[in-house]
């Protein structure tokens, strides 16, 4: 035993192997099963992919580091569910490359933000948060309204997403630029293709109120309005849990009772 270790250690290479071996086990054990598991990701047949405009908006969300202050992960705790809505399911972020669960809530969680406020509210809030919420400490993002969105390369973005496993069709990739255009210009000829490819429920609106061009504001608001709305799975699961947990919910005494631990 000792002799073996001494040899390992004397030749630095053996020592290196020992460190790699020791250190890699934990990661393998924890991560490897997540790739085979089907149960970690629930079924959501209604789940749709991000439209090119929403994806561009998501990239702006990433670029501006919004995730540094806003989580997109409602934990299975009673107060969180009451404050933000049904707890987040794994399936909801299955097309999120990368995920934006976040680690800090300087601002509130955004996992179920979509549809909560009007487009106009979002635009006003992003231009100057303190116009809408006087106590807010969020930075101003006025330039989003001034910047044109780069849409000519969205096809390449969709192909890259496809390469990492998101089911974009060739048609979606080919029409990416037009679809981004169409989603924010409901009266244009391109609008129809968007609902054809991404579903009738897709928001097709002039998000920033300006019909003359596609701005970064359009993209970001389109993304914020779809948060938590790509699938109904979480609401369905919540409805299922609700009936079985009604009694528990009645008593309401626990401040942070883990919900859903029974479901897991």
């Amino acid at each position, binding site marked *: *035993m*000792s002799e073996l*270790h*001494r040899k390992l250690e004397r030749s630095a290479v053996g020592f290196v192997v020992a460190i790699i071996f*020791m250190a890699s*086990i934990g990661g393998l*054990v*924890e991560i*490897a*099963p997540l*790739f*085979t*598991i*089907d*149960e970690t990701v629930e079924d959501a047949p209604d789940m749709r992919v991000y439209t090119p405009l929403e994806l561009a908006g998501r990239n702006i969300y990433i670029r501006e580091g919004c995730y540094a202050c806003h989580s997109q992960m409602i934990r299975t705790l009673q107060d969180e569910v009451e404050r933000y809505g049904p707890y987040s399911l794994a399936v909801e972020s299955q097309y999120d490359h990368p995920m934006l669960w976040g680690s800090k809530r300087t601002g509130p969680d955004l996992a179920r933000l979509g549809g909560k406020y009007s487009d106009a509210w979002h635009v006003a809030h992003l231009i100057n948060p303190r116009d809408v919420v006087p106590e807010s400490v969020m930075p101003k993002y006025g330039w989003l309204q001034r910047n044109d969105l780069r849409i000519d390369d969205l096809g390449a973005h969709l192909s890259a997403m496809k390469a990492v496993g998101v089911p974009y069709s060739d048609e979606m990739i080919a029409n990416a630029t037009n679809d981004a255009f169409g989603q924010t210009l409901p009266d244009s000829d391109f609008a129809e293709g968007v609902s054809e490819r991404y579903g009738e429920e897709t928001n097709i609106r002039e998000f920033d109120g300006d019909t003359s061009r596609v701005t970064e504001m359009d993209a970001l608001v389109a993304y914020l309005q779809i948060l938590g709305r790509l699938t109904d799975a979480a609401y369905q699961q919540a409805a299922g849990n609700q009936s079985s947990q009604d009694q528990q919910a009645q008593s309401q005494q626990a401040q942070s009772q883990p919900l859903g631990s029974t479901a897991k």
Partner: protein
Amino acid sequence: MIADHETLVAIAKSWGLFYLIAMSIGVLLYAFWPRNRKRFEKAKMSILEKDDRPWH
């Protein structure tokens, strides 16, 4: 993937523990092996030597 999920989880849960125990025994044996005492003593003192040149 070749292995199914249950197997992987089972391996993770059981062998991880055995591995931890084996590792601890191995490290303790090495650290307390009587013959190693002198080497460790030497290593401990060696950095305090006030000699600042490579040996050749």
